């Protein structure tokens, strides 16, 4: 299983996203390394189809398909929680579903 976390330093959310991701992986007994990728330029964002920080891909598939096609940019990414609230990181449920 390939797990990537793409992030941009200008957004403070990726440490929290990584901690949540590692927690979900541990809970599920998945022994996989998270590949971290720092996206630093608009050109990189375009090339990587990076819709904002953080972006987590499991075997190339975005954990939040609804937001995967947003305009590539060096941004904080918006996630929508199941109760409708906005969050700068994906929900635990999204990560669990993506890993199932």
């Amino acid at each position, binding site marked *: 299983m390939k797990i990537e976390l793409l992030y941009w330093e*200008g*957004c*403070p*959310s990726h440490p929290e996203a990584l901690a949540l991701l590692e927690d979900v992986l541990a809970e599920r007994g998945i022994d996989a390394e998270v590949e971290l990728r720092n996206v630093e330029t*608009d050109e990189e964002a375009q090339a990587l189809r990076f819709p904002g920080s953080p972006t987590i891909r499991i075997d190339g598939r975005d954990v939040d398909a609804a937001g995967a096609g947003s305009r590539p*940019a060096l*941004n*904080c*990414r*918006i*996630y929508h929680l199941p109760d409708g*609230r*906005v*969050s*700068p990181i994906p929900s635990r449920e999204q990560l669990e579903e993506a890993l199932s």
Partner: protein
Amino acid sequence: MSTALAQTAPQFTLPGVDGSDHSLDDYRDAPALVLVQSCNHCPYVQAWEGRLNAVARDYADRGVRVVAISSNDVSSHPEDSFEEMQRRARSQGFVFDYLYDETQEVAHALGAERTPEVFVYDGDRRLAYHGLVDDNRDETAVSAHYLRDALDAVLAGETPAVADTAPVGCTVKWRS
């Protein structure tokens, strides 16, 4: 507090989403003025803006005015254009003024770095509190209501117990 922050409220005249220009002097009668460096696109702003709206509503009868200011470069972040600001203010029912700082002069004058970033000024427009709205972007987990506590203190003629917190949010999108 950081020495980079303006210790008195900067002068400004900026267009608001209501179609009128708004100046610092327009709020002269407010015993406390809350300026918030803000924008549309940032998830941290979106997570906190409902609470900001609630503060504006809850303190209105005590004369407090809340003013959000977006200074982001719209060439790199078109979601923050003035037209989009007007749409968001309508869709979210903002009860506070939402102003567009196209030249970014106000953001520079404030010493702002993040969105959202709160600046509370007392009746003499001296900075009384700077930083977070509260201590958790998840409103179900908030334990410290910094902005409300600061306003209560200012309205009581006191110094806020917590006068400075480190803002958490997106960076201000400066023009290159």
